[in-house]
């Protein structure tokens, strides 16, 4: 486990502030989701964490220490832009990257073999990389990211181009890492995966931090006072509701917005009192996707939650 701490980091390219005074802290054994619209500064932030780029100002530390070679060997990085040496054999390429991460020759070879088997590519070990499909190359890259058993993993869009079976596999890797108390930094646009995996959420837009906190806290903060009930229920005419919308809810459900002083418990009691056929009842959660879209479209960049 390595705790990453980013403090007030800024980076500009010419006149553009790619990252502007951003801070964050990871928590070991938790999955940290890094969100943000395209061009918001996510990749720049990750590259600065990886020491590929130097920040103009601010500090990035790992367990309180600046980056070093020894630390880099404990980090696994899957960049958003994928690429491998196309003309070389898959096994050789994976072994080479293992060696660059400080593994000895035999160990690198053994683990390359082992990891290629884990991602179902053992039959391709002796083939040239260019013969692999895109999804296979993606799996190979995930293998070489995790090969040296890093304590901190930074995955930039790990699900891109994967079918559901392989998506499940990568999710399992992430869960396994988390359970082994590793720090996982996950950057993705797939909100469903974030909801399923993330403990912490960080969102960057126009170079600024616009969202930062525990997923559960964020979702609570962003929920409206609303409930979902099955569509047969007739809530009209009840005290304390503002609006009913059938289109806002999935499936055969309708969404009922309540007045601010109306408790959801009171509302269901009122429904039951009216002998409405209540078969489904739940608090309406705002999907992360809606929060994302709302924040990404906001021109004013100010932190909303923490």
């Amino acid at each position, binding site marked *: 486990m390595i705790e990453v701490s980013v403090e007030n980091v800024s980076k500009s390219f010419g006149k553009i502030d790619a990252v502007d005074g951003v801070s964050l802290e990871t928590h070991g054994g938790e999955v940290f989701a890094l969100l943000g619209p395209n061009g918001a500064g996510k990749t720049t932030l990750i590259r600065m964490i990886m020491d*590929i780029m130097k920040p103009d100002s601010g500090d990035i530390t790992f367990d309180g220490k600046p980056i070093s070679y020894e630390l880099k060997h404990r980090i696994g990085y899957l960049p958003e832009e994928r690429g491998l040496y196309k003309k070389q054999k898959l096994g050789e390429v994976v072994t080479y990257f293992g060696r660059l991460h400080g593994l000895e020759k035999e160990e690198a070879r053994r683990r390359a073999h082992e990891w290629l088997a884990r991602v179902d590519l053992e039959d391709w070990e002796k083939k040239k990389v260019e013969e692999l499909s895109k999804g296979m190359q993606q799996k190979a890259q995930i293998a070489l990211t995790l090969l040296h058993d890093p304590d901190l993993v930074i995955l930039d869009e790990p699900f891109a181009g994967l079918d559901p079976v392989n998506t499940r596999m990568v999710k399992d890797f992430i869960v396994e890492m988390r359970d082994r108390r590793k720090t996982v930094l996950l950057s993705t646009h797939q909100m469903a995966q974030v909801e399923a995996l993330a403990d912490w959420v960080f969102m960057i837009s126009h170079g600024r931090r616009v969202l930062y906190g525990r997923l559960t806290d964020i979702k609570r903060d962003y929920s409206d006072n609303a409930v979902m009930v099955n569509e047969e229920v007739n809530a009209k005419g009840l005290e304390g509701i503002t609006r009913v919308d059938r289109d806002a809810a999935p499936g055969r459900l309708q969404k009922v917005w309540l007045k601010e002083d109306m408790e959801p418990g009171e509302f269901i009691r009122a429904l039951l009192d009216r002998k409405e056929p209540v078969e489904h009842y739940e608090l309406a959660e705002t999907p992360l996707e809606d929060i994302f879209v709302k924040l990404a479209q906001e021109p004013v960049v100010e932190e909303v939650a923490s």
Partner: protein
Amino acid sequence: MKRAFLVARRELYVTIRRKAYLLTIFGMPILFGGIFVIMGYFTARSVMKIRPKVIAVVDSSGVVDTTILRNLEEEARENSVLGEEAIEALEQRLTDLNPNTKTLVSEIFSGFRGAVSLLTMTNADSAREATRRGDLDGALIVSGDYLNTGRVWGYSQSRSFIEDDESPAERLLRQTLVLSLLKDQNLDPGIQIRILRPMHLRAFEVSEVGEEFEETGVASEIRKFALPYGFSLLLLMSIMMGGGFLLQGVAEEKENRVIEILLSSLTPDDLMTGKVLGLGAAGLIQIIVWLGMAFALLTFASRSLMPGFEVPVDLFLICLGYFLVGYLMIASLMAGVGCLGNTMKESQQLSTWFTIPVVAPFIMIMVILAEPNGVIARVFSYFPLTSPVTMMLRLPSQQVPWWEVPLTFVILIVSVYLALRLGGKLFRLGSLMYGKRPTVPEIWRWLRQA
């Protein structure tokens, strides 16, 4: 450094298994050897295939001695491929043996190329008519008043065939006439030789180095053309190949974004050092193989075909030295510009800033060979990018002052240092720069900021 070494090992390993590399390293000697063999074959074949020209000689004056004419013709055929050394040997033999006319004339036609068959006829009109019909290639008619006027008429379908001073028939008849006239004069054979060949020029070159140098024949040709061409071409190809692979490698890593993973576990300096060293090792293997083959070939040739030609061992070592410094300089620059472009094509376009000066001496080859110590040759020698190839063009002439070699090495070593720093800076800046290709003023601004 350990990581740079890992990178270097991979680069070397991947490069020496590349088809392009193997094809060049072994294909080049085969190609060049093949060209020589084919050229030699066709030259030999064309010489053998030429039908001897049939020329009629009509002597109306009674001066021409037909025996001399026959002998000359035969000798001409036999000695048509003898070189300068053979002439000297013959000359010696002639003075020793007080030779008769037949051996005397053999000297005249040594070096004579092309075959001719002379036919004596008595009727001038029929000879002319036969030439007109194409039965004869030509007719030479010695006028009846030859002793007074020296007049000879020549007829042929192509005028140049007879008019040309070097035409075999014309020479044959000229020498026949001289010998026929001398025949009854009882002259000393030595004087006869001098009349036929009034001077035998041996040229000496007195160079700046103060060294007198004289070579003739094939050995001189090799020193004047083959060595400069050979050395500079091998050097140029080795440097450009190493630099080209480097540029390609960097551009490829940037294009397929492998560079991002690489830079997450090593520094740009490690990466660049590793690449330069790895490809340098591949280039070194290449030039050693080539120079080794050339050395073996020259040694073999000097023993069997060109006695007196000394294989210039020092030039081989100096060439290797120029490769090392020249490659390091170009490779550093190539690594720098290689990562400025977004694609291979863009990077290659940028690299022409360096590749054109490196090739420039080869374009100016005639000027440099003609005047190895001329202004252009010297300026090119002192300018780092053109220096290695220019020096390898000049050195075989043996006219270059010795101190120019250490001087150019000092210039090049300083340039290597500067190129490494410049290339390293560009590499650090460019390795993660995507988007629009930077313009030269932009690059300049970055460099000043960095």
